[in-house]
């Protein structure tokens, strides 16, 4: 399957295109993180970050996303050696890790709204919800993508011949993970 997609560089064209997409995503998240940092500490009314951010809870979410990255590479390794039984297990684990993260984010957002922090409350609310919400949207897309792969695996349509498809899915998933590593530090830990 991959032989039909190689460029004159000997590289898979889909992989080149996807790395370029990830590069563009760096610029998107760079602008969102910059906006958060520029308006940090400039809210005129509360709630302020130290009033609402829950570090132990978010640390668990961070751990969950890191582990889902591990499961993703294990899924790729399983597909590459055509071990589809374990590929399904790791793909399901990765998707569940993403769902747990999303559930945590929904709980966090609803908790913040109950505390009086919305998109319109202050600069912290506006920049925080846009940044973390955009990341959450990326996680949701990743979970749908992973579940699609899982369904294809269950139908017997995912084999080692499709390893590049799983690798590209993994690139997306790990990118979502590294963006969270940055957000966790800049938004949650450096208040």
């Amino acid at each position, binding site marked *: 399957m991959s032989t039909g997609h190689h460029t004159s560089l*000997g*590289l898979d064209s889909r992989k080149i295109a996807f790395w370029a997409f990830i590069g563009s995503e760096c610029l998107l998240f*760079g602008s969102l993180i910059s906006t958060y940092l520029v308006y940090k500490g400039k809210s005129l009314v509360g709630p302020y970050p130290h009033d609402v951010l829950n570090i132990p809870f978010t640390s668990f979410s961070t*751990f969950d996303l890191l582990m889902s990255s591990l499961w993703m590479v294990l899924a790729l*390794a399983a597909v590459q050696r055509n071990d589809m039984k374990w590929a399904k297990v790791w793909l399901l684990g990765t998707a569940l890790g993403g769902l747990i993260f999303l559930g945590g984010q929904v709980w966090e957002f609803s908790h913040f709204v109950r505390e009086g922090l919305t998109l319109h409350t202050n600069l912290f609310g506006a920049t925080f919800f846009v940044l973390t919400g955009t990341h959450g949207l990326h996680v949701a897309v990743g979970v749908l993508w992973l579940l699609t792969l899982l369904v294809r695996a269950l139908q017997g349509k995912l084999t080692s011949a499709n390893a590049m498809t799983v690798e590209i899915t993994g690139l997306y998933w*790990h990118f979502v993970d590294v963006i969270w590593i940055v957000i966790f*530090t800049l938004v949650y830990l450096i208040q």
Partner: protein
Amino acid sequence: MSADSAHSDSSPHVAPAGHAHPGAAVYLRIAVILFMLTVLEVGIFYVPAFHPILVPALLILSAIKFTLVVLFYMHLKMDSKIFTMIFGGPLLLATAVMIGLCFLFGVLVIR
């Protein structure tokens, strides 16, 4: 569900472009390091003695975690350098824009 039982074959896999991917053992070692770095980050946050160096320490730990995931889980260490350039260029640009804006708006100040 142990990793050992799941991965009787922990030998490196060869990617289509001919670059070997690390095996499960390497992936597990990276995961352990990432977990320990996260614990360290949260620990530094809660220990008042570390607060004078909180920001640089957290930024360094975060950069190490970012680099480990990109090098080993996204396979940039083993893959073609062209991928590194395609990703590294925009990443450097985004970082430069972030630092530039932080200086411009007074978030970062040179004394």
